[in-house]
């Protein structure tokens, strides 16, 4: 863990009496290692390191009796501050239905998260409608339909040949007819460099009043998390993040990178494959996990 590594660093430096700024840099190298191992983006690590360096020197850690613990606390608090804040609850539209669009890379957990979100919001008294807007992946519509059935949540889908912007527009129309007040759009996984599919998301937004666009990110995503999120964000402004597969042991540094660079708040965390495996986001827990 970072605290042990820092203990090791500082015990070597202890015999020297007062620590110098150069010694602080030795400690910061351990922090950098820990963050990179946790998949925090290279450039974000540099920023975080600089901020921590200022605080470490400013708070006279060099004179502390427990410098390792002091540095860990500074780092931890810095991460909590970076991760936290922002609107963490799902925003509701001024007039129903609220439309939530889930977007992200292939396989990140959008379809599963759509079902989880439907269950979560129904427990809060909403009437959700799930929308099968992935017309590409084999059996994607089947997958969402089955999940909806398991939860007794209605699923809107159209036969082969229908286009996602039309499907979504028709779904919202149906929601209004059935007095469903929450429409959750499950979109196809896509690469941020696919112009056509990025345009498709813009087209959906143009046809449907989307209140929340949630980027669904796999906790194990590596260095590219920032570039991917930024590009999605430039096409359809993201309003929140769902970090999935946090029931594994991926440290989840991607969450810090995405939040730090795009400013998008993490709203939910996926902690399993079942429909009830969705948690609110706790910045201090994820901060501890990233530090390892």
């Amino acid at each position, binding site marked *: 863990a970072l605290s042990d590594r820092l203990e090791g660093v500082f015990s070597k430096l202890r015999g020297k009496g007062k620590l110098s700024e150069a010694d602080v840099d030795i400690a910061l190298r351990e922090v950098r290692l820990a963050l990179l191992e946790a*998949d925090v983006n290279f450039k974000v690590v540099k920023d975080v390191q600089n901020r921590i360096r200022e605080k470490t020197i400013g708070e006279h850690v060099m004179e502390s009796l427990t410098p390792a613990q002091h540095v860990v606390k500074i780092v931890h608090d810095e991460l909590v501050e970076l991760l936290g804040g922002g609107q963490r609850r799902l925003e509701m539209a001024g007039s129903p239905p609220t439309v939530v669009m889930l977007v992200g890379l292939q*396989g990140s957990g959008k379809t599963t998260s759509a079902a989880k979100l439907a269950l979560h919001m129904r427990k809060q008294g909403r009437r959700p409608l799930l929308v099968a807007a992935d017309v590409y992946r084999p*059996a994607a519509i089947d*997958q969402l339909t089955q999940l909806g059935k398991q939860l007794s949540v209605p699923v809107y889908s159209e036969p082969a040949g229908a286009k996602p912007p039309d499907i979504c527009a028709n779904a919202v129309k149906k929601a209004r007819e059935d007095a469903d007040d929450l429409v959750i759009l499950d979109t196809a996984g896509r690469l941020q460099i696919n112009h056509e599919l990025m345009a498709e998301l813009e087209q959906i937004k143009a046809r449907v009043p989307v209140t929340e666009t949630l980027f669904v990110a796999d*906790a194990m995503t590596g*260095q590219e998390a920032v570039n991917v999120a930024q590009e999605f964000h430039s096409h359809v402004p993201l309003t929140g993040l769902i970090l999935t*597969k946090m*029931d594994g042991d991926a*440290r989840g540094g991607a969450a810090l990178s995405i939040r730090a660079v795009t400013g998008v708040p993490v709203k939910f965390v996926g902690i399993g*494959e079942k429909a009830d495996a969705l948690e609110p986001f706790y910045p201090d827990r994820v901060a501890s996990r990233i530090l390892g």
Partner: protein
Amino acid sequence: FNRKTEITEEFYEELEELLIQADVGVMTTQRLIEALRERVEDDNIRAIDGAREAFRDEMAGFLEDESEGLRLAQPVSLLLIVGVNGVGKTTTIGKLATYLKGAGHSVLLAAGDTFRAAAIEQLQAWGSRAGVPVIAHQPGSDPSAVIFDAIAAAEARGVDVVLADTAGRLHTKFNLMEELRKVSSVAGKRLPGAPHEVLLIVDATSGQNALIQAKQFTEVSPVTGLIVTKLDSTAKGGIVFAIRDELGLPIKFVGTGEKISDLAPFDAGRFVGGLFD
């Protein structure tokens, strides 16, 4: 001497940044850069171009594997496809089936993911696209039983390759990893030598966790190779250097898209080239 082409500390720093951003990981990056420094010294390399070329050469050599292609046996081979959730197992099976048919084999698929919603339907769709039969039971049935059945069907029909899909599973889930251990050992009892290949699917967009995945999956099933998917993304899949370094696993194929033809045998030179794009 041309200052612009001289090998400076800055060159090594830029290289380090490139590798870390490619998910090679800090430790592995340091090892690779250290090896390059030695080679630059040993071979008396003076220009950056020379160093770059030596490096690409070094890295490609590191990933290359003499064992060509898949280990197939007669009369039936079982290839088990494993990995964590969402990495591309099911899609890759569709691609592999097409690839193997193209190479003159007869293939059938085993719908070993009996858990996830519409997993069986998804594999059946790929089976139909590839023009190969799919052996499936009811959702919720025992994956070992499905694979057992598939082996029997292959023997009966004279099919020589069985591709077995399995449910995505996080390596931290003890029960699921034990299930995989059982699937692997039951297959071996039914068909001597099975599974002839256990292919771990690794997502190119994943970071350092893929190394832990590889280690844990190797503990419960005899992983024989990797398939790196989603290399058409902007991610570079650099974690494979650490996997190769620590586990010696060869990369057999790469996935480069969502179409059935988006699979290619691994080419170390091209992969390394992709890191420097």
